[in-house]
């Protein structure tokens, strides 16, 4: 009975998650590949960090789906997976790629103000540190908390920038929404992992719209 109930409850989520992941990962990778030519032509630092953001986000969403698949396999089919395998995917890979993505996107907009000698080295060190701490200490909330701190840093930097230039940026709002949806998506991997499916779908639809708007802006200039 429990098995039937779990099966009945979980299956639609898996389908929703699969569809959502395919759309988001495709959009992220398309942004990465579409900006290749203008980066090759200019070697512009801002373009470099902008495009790798979407490569890392695509990978983070992909590993997030794999983590979720493990949870669902365990619940639905009672398939035992050693916990360290799940931790590698959910904490290490998801933590690493998403931290790299958040840091890259933030840096792409502030690199003119904040000159760092080897930004990728620094970002890798931060991302590895965060994913290692999350992996060792396990509480899922630690990963969410560290990403929320990074998000706050992004908001402060952007607010400082826009306050100085005295203009509001539609792009800034898009980025903040994009990050927020990512953090909401991380909750799904946590202990209280399942939001009501209607809320989850609503979040996912809005997050697809946000990425689609970014993608549309990219294609406008990369014909």
């Amino acid at each position, binding site marked *: 009975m429990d098995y039937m109930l779990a099966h009945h409850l979980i299956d639609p989520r898996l389908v929703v998650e699969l569809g959502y992941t395919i759309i988001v990962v495709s959009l992220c990778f398309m942004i990465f590949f579409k*900006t290749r*030519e*203008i980066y090759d*032509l*200019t*070697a*512009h*630092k*801002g*373009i470099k960090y*902008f495009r790798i953001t979407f490569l890392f986000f695509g990978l983070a969403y992909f590993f997030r789906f794999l983590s979720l698949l493990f949870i669902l396999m365990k619940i639905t089919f009672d398939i035992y997976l050693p916990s360290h395998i799940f931790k590698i995917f959910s904490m290490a890979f998801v933590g690493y790629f998403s931290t790299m993505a958040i840091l890259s996107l933030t840096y*792409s*907009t502030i690199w*003119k*103000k904040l*000159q760092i000698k080897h930004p990728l080295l620094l970002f890798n060190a931060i991302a590895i540190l965060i994913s290692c701490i999350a992996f060792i200490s396990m509480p899922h909330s630690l990963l969410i908390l560290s990403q929320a701190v990074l998000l706050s840093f992004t908001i402060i930097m952007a607010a400082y920038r826009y306050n100085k230039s005295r203009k509001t*940026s539609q*792009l800034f709002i898009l980025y903040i929404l994009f990050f927020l949806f990512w953090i909401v998506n991380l909750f799904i991997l946590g202990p209280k992992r399942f939001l009501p499916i209607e809320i989850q779908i609503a979040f996912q639809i809005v997050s697809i719209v946000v990425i689609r708007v970014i993608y549309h*802006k*990219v294609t*406008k*200039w*990369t*014909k």
Partner: protein
Amino acid sequence: MDKIRRRRDRLEVVYDILKIIRQHHNSIKPTPLLRYSNLSSQSFSEYLSELLEKGFVKEITDEKGKKFLTLTDKGFRYLEKYKLILGFIEEFEL
């Protein structure tokens, strides 16, 4: 602000150099190119080395041994895409 300006100028200087070459039927000697580009000789040398190294222009030598600079496909593509590149940088505030 200075750094933004420098970066924008860099893309613009590259565009200007490539445009001058194209305007001269895609073949110009380095000395007149230096003159038309309005750069110091040191800056010009740096830009030219970069453009040669990255394959935007190539050097050709005629039968009399005179050197000319000519655009490569990549150089033409840069000219073609320049406005889109600026639009992209502006759109995403990069």
